[in-house]
């Protein structure tokens, strides 16, 4: 059984990695064979060189972007869960608050970002953009989880005269955990996208220090390898955020929830 599990994990990681490196090799070969100049399409080796050469600048920008993403995700988690709990307590609150959350979700962040930059400091505007896109999936998934408690378990808690607080702590929150974690996984990726979009808007107005700003700046200078290097860091960050949140989900749901069980078998 243990051996089978190891094989599946190796396949899960090994196959996409093999495809990725094959695509990189093909890209490198094509650029060299066609002699394509780096300002049109840099080879992966050139991008890697640029990444090493500009590491201090790019990694300090990466830290700025990741810092904003993390802060936005934390605030979105706190606000999303808090609002979901409020909504779960009262249909009136749901009717009053949910439409505003939906309006914020369906309005494209790229349209909101320039406005926020008018009214706020760039750092705050970027944080608010990232928060806005991460907030809704956490809110909607947690609300769904809180409302999807098993009827038999509800009866059981009623039978033993559980207080609303006991129902929340011992039943509703654990029941909502899988949906909350799904929202968190989606929100984590979206927080990064929100931060990047807002940084792009800030970058266009000559402000900002994040990775997206470096892309805008490199674009102005036609430094295409640096654009690719920054893009690669953004992609890797997105993967790392998703991987970390997926691992958190697995650890918290392992042993009892079907989603984590499916990964085990």
């Amino acid at each position, binding site marked *: 059984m243990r051996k089978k599990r190891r094989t599946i994990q190796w396949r899960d990681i090994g196959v996409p990695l093999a495809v990725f490196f094959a695509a990189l090799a093909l890209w490198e070969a094509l650029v060299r064979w066609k002699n394509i100049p780096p300002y049109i399409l840099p080879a992966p080796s050139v991008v890697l060189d640029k990444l090493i050469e500009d590491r201090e600048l790019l990694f300090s920008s990466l830290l700025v972007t990741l810092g904003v993403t993390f802060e936005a995700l934390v605030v979105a988690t706190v606000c999303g869960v808090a609002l979901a709990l409020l909504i779960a307590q009262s249909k009136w609150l749901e009717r009053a608050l949910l439409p505003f959350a939906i309006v914020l979700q369906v309005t494209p962040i790229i349209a909101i970002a320039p406005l926020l930059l008018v009214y706020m400091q760039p750092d705050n505007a970027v944080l608010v953009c990232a928060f806005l896109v991460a907030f809704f999936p956490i809110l909607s998934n947690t609300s769904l989880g809180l409302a999807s408690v098993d009827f*038999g378990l509800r*009866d*059981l808690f009623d*039978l033993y005269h*559980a207080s609303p607080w006991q129902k929340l702590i011992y*039943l509703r929150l654990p029941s909502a955990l899988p949906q909350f974690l799904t929202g968190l996984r989606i929100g984590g990726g979206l927080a990064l996208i929100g931060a990047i979009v807002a940084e792009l808007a800030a970058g266009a107005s000559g402000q900002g220090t994040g990775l997206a700003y470096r892309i805008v700046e490199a674009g102005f200078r036609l430094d295409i390898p640096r654009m690719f290097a920054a893009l690669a860091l953004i992609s890797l960050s997105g993967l790392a955020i998703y991987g970390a949140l997926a691992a958190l989900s697995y650890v918290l749901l392992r042993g*009892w*929830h079907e989603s984590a069980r499916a990964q085990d078998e």
Partner: protein
Amino acid sequence: MTAPALVSLRAVGKTFPSGLVALADYDLDVREGETLTLLGPSGCGKSTVLRLVCGLASPTAGAIDWRAPQIKNNIGVVFQDATLLPWASVFDNVFLPLRLNRLSREAASPRVDEALAQVGLLNFSRALPRELSGGMRMRCAIARALVTRPALIMMDEPFAALDEVTRFKLNDDLLALKRRFGATIVFVTHSVFEAAYLSTRIVVMSRRAGRIIDEIEIDPAIPRDDDYRASKTFADVCRRASQALRVSIAEATP
């Protein structure tokens, strides 16, 4: 001599908001110490009676009278599904009623262990529900119902989803627990054989708003074992319950 009633349903009715009449003018006494089985086809209102007695639903007519209020506040229930918290260990599932009663883990631990030992799950106290078989999950649910030491245990088709062998074993275990605790049990089932084996009284219900078609008394002194299953008494009870059940089904057929 008939034992005094623990709880009495008097002219109880239950009509759902959709207009469906589940029970009408229903009378029933649950006597102290008995194992009362409510037998009937699906939709006859057996589970409604159970929910009304447990306080999980309110009657739309009539009254439910309790001999003592403390009995009402400490009822053990075993549902059709084991209804365990999937994220909690066997110990924590059995501990739940005591935890909700604000008992600390340390104070509750001996009682939880005792309940687990009684259903043979003491060695599985750290296991999660998904690691248990269907029969073991049901044992866990029974331990949870026992841990508060209730005077009345309500069981809603608890063994319906189990295989025959496991069901027979759990029937015997339930009788052994009953002998040890002496609690009153109200058992809901649609199995004639299970009703005949477990009960000291069987109430056969009609599909028409829970009308009682027959009431069969079985001598509680008769030992419940394989000999009983092969006895004439058992066959007679099964025959009479089956006939009542046929009437019940015929009444419902237009």
